């Protein structure tokens, strides 16, 4: 039993810890099983050797024994050893209680709903273990055990809720998980396409949008965040920019109106549907058409805005802006520069040049992947003429580089692309994983034209699991785009529901931190969430709840047994019929009373009363089935 529980508890961790530790813990379980089965006693020096070698192994592998990975690995091994040396009741109890702790370690790696559910199951298993260990009458089968422990789990829910809401929260995560080699999707204030080896997509919501006007198609939804015009050969950064004076803005007309509910992103920029012309309240509009808040957004923030179409007819790009958007480092990436100049010379116009590059991306072996090779020097050369694989940042960066090399003003725009409609909330959800980078190229009389080189990649060269997302993008080659969306209808609805549940899980449960706790308590009129007060509150609540629980238990023990309950019910029903039954009348006396004075009721009621007599006074009746029949009889009365 303990072996099974340990296996259940360790299962999710096996995927996270180094494989040799996984193998070792499984090995320990098998050794325990064998020693148990063949009743072998392991000498304690033997175990000691193993424990020391485990320490050494962990240290050799991680170069430390603290920290998340090393710590978890070590604990897993020790957990296995503890089971190996367990023999008494005390050991078993200890094992089970340690299991609770070890179980929670799985949350260090994964906090999804599935994990939550799995751990609930694991908890049930551990509780069953405790129940089995402490049962006097022996185990009555697994169902009985899980029923008992399930009830215990349910009883613990109030305490669980209290602890969840009131347990003092730390300002920020308990442990940061800095990991250099991985990047996350999302928006940052710079872009260095070469140095990211693996991009992890986070499904956290970035913001939600409700449209007050007509809704653009998802492929048209480019949510502009920042513009990078400064390139140092490796990293793209925001260039020189200034808040606009309205006179600088060409004439425009409004196309869409919408409201945005923004998740706190701890930065100052806002996102808007292209093109941007006006700024939400207290927000600056810069002359590269980006928004900027005066302060970092740390709480959920709502704003409304509009998307416009500019009329660039006759508008000339100022010399200053032209130079800003043509800036390139003096050296580096010579091949690409040469390549771009050659191609531009062959092109008829700027637009033709753009089209040619896009065709090359579409028709040659350019791949879309979230795990490109890391490039050290001459990033654009390496990508464009070498690896030919990357994600939006690579494509956008390289595209702008070549535009500029050919003398066409261009810049990188980052933000989010797309949005998922939720019919249950009538909003579009934009996730961190929708983060995207595209480009703008200056075309005379047309102004800044959006070009999304990533969208030009042929669908067959997009990593399979990324296709649905990628194909949502602006399609320059729409005839070649294959749809990968789920079939309309049931499946999609199911997915939406799941999203709704998941967003509840993420938004309300996982992100419940100090600020949320403070908000929540303020609503209750408690304005301080200092540790001390929370501690007091917690203690008081727990005491009160245990008191209430105790009273409830007391009440329950006084509660009448079911036979009595239904017999009383039967008597009540009789009394409603006008029959007065003296207190000291036994069942037989009632039957006789009915027989003499209420013959019309006698037939109906005497059957039920006879069942009652059978249960209460007859010898060795099958009480369970008799009770069922008695109950059924009383119910029909």
């Amino acid at each position, binding site marked *: 039993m303990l072996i099974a529980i340990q296996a259940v508890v360790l299962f999710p961790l096996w995927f996270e810890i180094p494989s040799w530790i996984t193998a070792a813990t499984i090995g320990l379980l098998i050794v325990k099983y064998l020693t148990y089965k063949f009743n072998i006693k392991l000498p304690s020096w033997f175990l000691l050797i193993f424990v020391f070698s485990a320490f050494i192994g962990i240290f050799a592998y991680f170069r430390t024994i603290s920290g998340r990975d090393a710590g978890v690995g070590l604990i897993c091994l020790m957990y296995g050893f503890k089971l190996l040396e367990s023999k008494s009741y005390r050991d078993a109890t200890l094992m089970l209680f340690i299991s609770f702790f070890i179980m929670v370690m799985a949350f260090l790696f994964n906090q999804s709903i599935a994990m939550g559910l799995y751990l609930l199951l694991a908890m049930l298993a551990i509780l069953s273990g405790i129940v089995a260990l402490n049962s006097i009458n022996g185990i009555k089968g697994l169902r009985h055990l899980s029923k008992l422990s399930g009830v215990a789990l349910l009883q613990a829910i109030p305490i669980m809720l209290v602890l969840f809401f009131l347990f003092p929260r730390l300002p920020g995560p308990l442990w940061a998980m800095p990991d250099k080699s991985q990047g996350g999707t999302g928006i940052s204030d710079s872009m260095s396409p070469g140095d990211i080896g693996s991009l992890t997509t986070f499904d956290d919501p970035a913001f939600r949008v409700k449209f007050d006007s007509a809704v653009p198609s998802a492929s048209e939804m480019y949510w502009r965040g920042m513009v990078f015009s400064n390139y140092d050969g490796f990293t793209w950064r925001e260039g020189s920019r200034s808040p606009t004076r309205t006179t600088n803005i060409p004439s425009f007309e409004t196309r869409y109106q919408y409201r945005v509910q923004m998740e706190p992103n701890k930065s100052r920029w806002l996102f808007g549907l292209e093109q941007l012309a006006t700024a939400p309240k207290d927000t600056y509009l810069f002359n590269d058409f980006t928004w900027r808040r005066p302060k970092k957004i740390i709480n959920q923030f709502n704003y409304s805005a509009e998307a416009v179409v500019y009329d660039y007819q006759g508008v000339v790009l100022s010399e200053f802006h032209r130079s800003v958007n043509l800036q390139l480092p003096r050296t580096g990436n010579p091949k690409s520069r040469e390549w771009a100049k050659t191609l531009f010379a062959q092109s008829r116009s700027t637009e033709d040049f753009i089209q040619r590059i896009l065709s090359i991306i579409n028709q040659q072996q350019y791949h879309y992947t979230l795990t490109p090779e890391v490039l050290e020097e001459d990033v654009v050369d390496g990508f464009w003429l070498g690896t030919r694989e990357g994600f939006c940042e690579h494509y956008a960066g390289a595209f702008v580089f070549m535009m500029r090399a050919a003398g066409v003003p261009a810049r990188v725009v980052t933000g989010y692309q797309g949005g998922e409609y939720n019919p249950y909330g009538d909003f579009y959800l934009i996730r961190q994983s929708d983060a995207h980078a595209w480009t703008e190229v200056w075309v005379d009389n047309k102004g800044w034209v959006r070009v999304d080189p990533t969208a030009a990649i042929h669908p067959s060269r997009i990593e399979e699991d990324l296709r649905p997302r990628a194909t949502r993008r602006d399609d320059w080659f729409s005839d070649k785009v294959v749809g990968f969306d789920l079939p309309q209808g049931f499946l999609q609805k199911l997915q939406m529901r799941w999203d709704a549940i998941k967003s509840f899980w993420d938004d309300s449960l996982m992100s419940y931190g100090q600020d949320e706790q403070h908000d929540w308590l303020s609503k209750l009129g408690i304005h301080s969430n200092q540790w001390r007060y929370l501690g007091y509150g917690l203690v008081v609540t727990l005491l009160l709840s245990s008191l209430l629980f105790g009273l409830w238990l007391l009440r329950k023990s006084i509660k009448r047994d079911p036979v009595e309950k239904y017999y009383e019910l039967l008597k009540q029903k009789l009394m409603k019929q006008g029959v007065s039954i003296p207190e*000291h009348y036994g069942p037989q006396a009632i039957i006789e009373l009915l027989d003499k004075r209420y013959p019309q009721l006698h037939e109906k009621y005497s059957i039920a009363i006879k069942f009652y007599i059978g249960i209460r006074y007859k010898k060795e009746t099958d009480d369970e089935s008799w009770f069922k029949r008695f109950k059924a009889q009383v119910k029909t009365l």
Partner: protein
Amino acid sequence: MHKTLTPVFNQLNKVVLGKSHQVKLSVACLLAEGHLLIEDLPGMGKTTLGQAIAKVFGLEFQRIQFTSDILPADIIGANIFDKNDGQFKFHAGPVFSQLILGDEINRATPKAQSALLEAMEEQQVTVEGETFSLPEPFFVIATQNPSHQIGTYPLPESQLDRFLFRIELGYPDPSFERVLLKGKSGRQNLNTIEPLLDLTELLSIQEAVTQITVSEHLLSYVITLIKVTRESPDFAHGISPRGGLALIKAAKAWAFLDGRDYVLPEDIQQVFIPVVAHRLESSLKSNSSAVSILEELLAQVKVPS
């Protein structure tokens, strides 16, 4: 009604008119292997009932008339010198019989009373160091005159305890009295009674009675009743454990007579007063008799659901 006993009751009711409840109690007493005390005025048919029971069950019957000068030897028997043999020989007294009718037991002196009562309890008598077993079954029906009558020695509580039931016959109903006065029943019918059961049948019935089921639930009712008598201010003391046992025994016999193999609270209620009333003494505070207090008490105690 248990079917083998139906003719028995028919016969008895022919002799003792209009007293079917008392007749049933008397038979229940016999089946529960207890002794019966009938308390009533002279001439109410006590002796007739006793004789009828003896006849119908085919039991050996002896009647002892208790008087103020009766001696223990008159009841038990004595060693008498036999001239022919030249030695003392035990002459068994009337107590060596299966059914004894002890008439007007409270007229005798305590010494004579106790001779019978000891025999009842121990099912044996000892005369000059020699022990003689009494026959089986051994059933005593004693009658007594109400204790307020002149010339009575009331039985002490310890001896009353040995009777399972104490019943009162009471005056007959006018309709039965009419039949009685016409002279068409009573003792004349006594001679027509024939034994309907033999000894082995009686013993097997007695055995069957002990097998009757008493459920836990019923016991809790009995315990409540006992507790109430012990706590009641109307009694000097409550029902003794022996009294409790007697109650269960009697209720079993009653259930058997009703043709059931399990005891119901109603059985307890039916036998409660005959079993309990003579064992309890109403306290000085109380003016009412034990019987009426017990009736009240029965009506107050709720049968557990």
